[in-house]
């Protein structure tokens, strides 16, 4: 297990440093600061990915009955509804951008889409759980 944790930490450091290096290449005005910020910001998620890849296969036992639970049904309903909502919002946004010819930054659009999708799933899940509890 020690070896797996060591591998996880090494994986996280390498992945985060690689992302930081790529970010610094695309931001030549302040490459050092950019690289450090992106490395620090992605260290956590990279560590989580490393844990998922190297540690969890030995420490987490998959639930063979997971799909039989009512909570799984609630999540599926919430995800399906959120997907439809996201398609509608993106179609409306695309129409507005096409008509006006004005487009906000891609970062804002993508961040909005991600936040909308995650928030939508969460809200729909809570509402479905309350209704069908």
């Amino acid at each position, binding site marked *: 297990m020690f070896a797996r944790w060591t591998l996880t930490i090494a994986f996280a450091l390498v992945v985060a440093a690689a992302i930081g290096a790529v970010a610094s290449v695309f931001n030549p005005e302040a490459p050092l600061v950019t690289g450090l910020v992106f490395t620090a910001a992605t260290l956590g998620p990279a560590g989580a990915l490393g844990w998922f890849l190297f540690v969890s296969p030995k420490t987490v036992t998959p*639930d063979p009955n997971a799909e*039989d639970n009512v*909570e799984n049904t609630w999540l599926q309903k919430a995800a399906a509804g959120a997907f439809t909502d996201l398609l509608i919002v993106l179609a409306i946004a695309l129409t507005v951008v096409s008509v006006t010819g004005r487009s906000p930054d891609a970062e804002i659009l993508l961040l909005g889409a991600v936040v909308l999708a995650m928030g939508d799933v969460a809200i729909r899940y809570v509402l479905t759980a309350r209704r069908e509890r």
Partner: protein
Amino acid sequence: MRNSLPDRRAERGWSQAELAERLGVSRQTIISIEKGRFDPSLPLAFRLADEFGVAIEDLFDPER
């Protein structure tokens, strides 16, 4: 779908949590099934029937 789950569970003196543990599902799943708000999957329905030693049609009744 109506079912006789609460009665059969009470006959055996099992709590919802105990039945859930026997079947490997959440307690909320048992609650929702008993209230008729969640139709179990076919494998879970078979496991439920097997747990009570009855046929599926004795446990669940869509017509009632």
